[in-house]
Structure formats: structure tokens, C-alpha cells
């Protein structure tokens, strides 16, 4: 199974730190799966101009293609101005409307304030749902105080990341099995 861990911002370090822990958990628990990190800070990605994702060049093409080839994603996002960052929204805008069909998507959010807890519920989930993702309903929300110098110092957060990783992989495995069973029933 191909899993993409996506860090959705070019600003700060909290989301990337949390995604690094997520990747470590994925590699520890599921060494056979292929895990790819996409940190949007590492790429120069153009804004969507409406073309098919295959027709972009360079970093934009690499990132969209890698996302499209994934069986499961874990998306990490900070909260900016009470929403997801434009860098992350642009990734969604670059992709087709059904981009997450047959994909499982888990989420983690980092924020400076507990007031942002429902942003993922109210803003990220509807986008993923519209794009046909199977969403892992529980997400991990991590606050400023859980970090210390690019490390997570709250064991509760680490436990929650472990559960997110397990839930994402179990759901992806399950949906894949169900889909294969169903597809096998078709007579073509």
C-alpha cells in the first residue's frame, strides 16, 4: 500500500514535526507499506489554473501525481486565520473533483489555540468528503504547549498519533478488500 504523509504549510515547524512522528509510527508498525513524505515547504508549486493534474510540470506535477497514486493519505495542517492554509487548499484545487475516490484520508491539525479545534471538522472534512475521500473520522489536534523545540512532549498526543496511523491503515485495508470483493462480482 502507498501512503502519503503530507505536511500542508510552508510556515513554522509544528505540522512538519507532527508528520515526522506520524511517518515514524507508520514505518514502525507497517514496514511493508511504502510511505512518502510531501512537505509543501520543500516544493515550488504553482496555483491551479484549471488544467488536468497530469498536464502540470515540475514540482506541481510530482506532488499531484504522488497524491493521486496513493492508497491512503495522512494530511497534517496548521490553522491560519481560522482556516487551512492556502498552500494546502491549492493542492485540493489542483486535483480532479473525484481525486480521493477509493482513498482513505486521516488528518492531524496543529494550532496555537484550542479555539481552533473544530476547524478540521468544519472546513477540512467537507472538502475531503466532496472529493470522495473515505475519512478517518477521529483526527489528532495538537496545541502549542504539546511541542518543545521541535519535539512532541505530550505522551497523550503520541498515543493519538499511533491510533490515527492504525485507523488509517486498517480502514484503507478494509475498504480495499471490500472493493476488490465487489469488483470481482462484476462480470467484466
Amino acid at each position: 500500500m502507498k501512503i502519503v504523509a503530507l505536511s500542508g504549510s510552508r510556515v513554522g515547524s509544528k505540522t512538519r514535526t507532527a508528520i515526522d512522528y506520524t511517518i515514524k509510527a507508520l514505518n514502525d508498525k507497517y514496514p511493508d507499506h511504502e510511505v512518502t513524505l510531501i512537505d509543501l515547504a520543500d516544493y515550488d508549486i504553482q496555483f491551479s489554473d484549471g488544467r488536468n493534474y497530469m498536464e502540470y510540470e515540475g514540482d506541481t506535477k510530482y506532488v499531484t501525481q504522488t497524491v493521486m497514486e496513493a492508497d491512503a493519505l495522512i494530511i497534517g495542517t496548521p490553522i491560519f486565520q481560522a482556516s487551512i492554509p492556502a498552500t494546502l487548499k491549492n493542492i485540493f484545487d489542483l486535483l480532479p473533483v473525484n481525486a480521493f475516490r477509493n482513498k482513505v484520508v486521516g488528518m492531524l491539525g496543529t494550532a496555537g489555540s484550542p479555539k481552533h479545534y473544530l476547524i478540521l471538522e468544519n472546513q477540512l472534512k467537507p472538502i475531503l468528503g466532496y472529493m470522495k475521500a473515505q475519512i478517518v473520522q477521529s483526527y489528532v489536534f495538537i496545541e502549542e504547549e504539546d511541542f518543545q523545540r521541535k519535539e512532541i512532549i505530550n505522551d497523550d498526543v503520541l498515543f493519538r498519533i499511533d491510533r490515527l496511523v492504525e485507523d488509517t491503515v486498517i480502514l484503507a485495508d478494509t475498504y480495499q478488500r471490500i472493493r476488490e470483493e465487489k469488483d470481482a462480482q462484476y462480470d467484466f
Partner: protein
Amino acid sequence: MDKYRIDPSKGLEFGLYTLGDHLPNPETGDRISAEQRIHEIIELAQLAEQAGIDFFSVGESHQDFFATQAHTVVLSAIAQATENIKISSSSTIISTLDPVRAYEDFATIDLISKGRTEIVAGRASRVGNFDLLGYNLRNYEDLFEEKFDLLLQINENEIVNWDGQYRAPLRNARVLPRPKEGSLPIWRAVGGTPASARKAGYAGVPMYLAHLGGPTAIFKRSIDAYRDALEYSGYNPAEFPVSTAGFFYVAETTQQAQRETYPHINEGMKRTNGQGFPKQHFAQGADPRDVMNIGSPQEVIEKILYQHELFGHQRYIGQMDFGGVTFDQLKRNIDFIGTEILPAIRKYTAQK
């Protein structure tokens, strides 16, 4: 309808189209050469004519996995190789061509074919042509509208005076040669939404409506929107033909037709559009209410007649060669069309 060379008393016209895709056969993994693919397209047009099919058209896509970038050249070979069948593009991406040169090509093909040539102009669903031919995708809509309008003006007037943004002005320009009957049927290609169909209506041109799959009733909305926009702009919808275009494939049974065509469509779409065709949607395509004409000859006949009843359209064209379908399979389809499908369609849609 005369202007568009459509005789409604003869009933629904039936045609075939190819995008000119050049894809591997997913059953074997092999891909024929571009040379063979182009020759097979020309031969397919000849076989279509022999079977009594009304129309054959070739698309223009400038990117990997396509072979008919120079679609007018392929059409001129078809014009020479055939006698009676109507021929056209499907579609010509006029946005990134010079309408003067495009018209010269099509008028010449019309003379070679002795008055059988039409143009279907579209905006492109694959946009590789913009970078390759030196156009900015940001001008996607303006390029099409301006150049399509110029194409229509050249069609209506032998001498053209014209000013625009994306091409040098024309001063008393004579665009020659003229087509056999003075002008060509020029259609506007529309995909997807009723809003897109309206644009063809506002422009007062006949419409080509592409449909991949989904309930037939959904596409009725686009046709209604087109006719409504025609009326809004002061045209009489009864004078403007509508054509639909979508997947077509027949075999002895619907199951067999689905089995023979699904891998081609699924793998072909992955390569050209970046996403396959979900099996669940494809399975629904067998429903008589779905617009996808894939099935046994009898079921496809019933679907086409149902579509005709709903749409009141003048022409349906089927795409059956997408994704590396073998030539033997295409020949079997042509046999079914000639012996079963055409007689039934004409029997039930021609005026008695």
C-alpha cells in the same frame, strides 16, 4: 436543417468517431505503431461507409497517446478513400489554430470529398495543445470565442474584414478555396454542463454534446438549455440540429460487450485523464436509462431509440475504438451496426 445537410425525414443519423488515441491494448500490453493506427482509422472509415453508416469523424489532441494531431491530413486521406460517408473533425481545437488556415484545410477536404465535409469545433478537454502551439491557457475561453467567431464569418463570407486580439486583422481577405456548396456545416462541441450548451445556443450554431456515462435524463437538460438559449437569441430551434457523442460497443450479449470494452476504457482513461472508470459506474451503464451505448445489439438499439425519443436529436455518433481495441473487434462491431442497428434505427426514426 438544409444548411447543415440534415434531412430529418431520413431519421436519426448514425456515425462513428475516434479521438485518434494511440494507446496500448490492455489485454496484451502491446501498442501498434502510429503508422498502423492511422491506416486502421482510414480503413475503419471505409468499412463504416460500406456498412451504410452516415458519418465518420476524427479528433485533434496534441499529447502523448494520440496519433491524429494533424487530423485534417487524416481526414483528407479519408475523403479520398471514401465516396458517400459524411466526414468531420471531432473536435477541431480552433482556439490554438489559425481559423484561416483551418478553413482552407476543411474547404479543400470538402472539395476532395465532393461536398461531404463538416467541422466540429471545440475548446479542448486535454490542453497539451496550448503549450505546444504557443498559446496561453489563461486565454482558454477568449481564444475559442474569438477564433470560432472568425471561423463562422469566413464560412458565411468569401471576403472577410475582421479585427481581433489573437490574430492579425483581415482586410478584404478572400479565404479560398470555397467549399463545394459555398459553406460548411460548423458545429460547436459541448461537454458536461447545461451552461456550456447554452453557449452554442447563444451563438446560433448546431451543437455536438459529448456524454461519457450517466442517466440519459441528465443530458436532456443540456439539450433543453441549448434550445432555450437559441430561442432567447432569436433563433428557431427547429432549424438547428443536435448531435450526441459517446461510448458505443456491441457484442452478442451485454455482459460480453462490457467484458470486452471495460479494460480498454479503464486503462485508457487512466493514461489520458489520470483516473480510471469506476466499475460501479460502468456496471450502471448497462441500465436502459443510462446513456452509455454498450451492450447487446438489441439493448443498444433500445437505448438509442430511448435517447432519440428524449432528445429529439438528429445524429448520434459512437466511440468504440478507445484504448487499443483490436481491429477485429471493430470489424465485428461494424457488422452488427450494418446488419442490426442501422436497419432498426431507420425503421423507427425515419418519417414514413
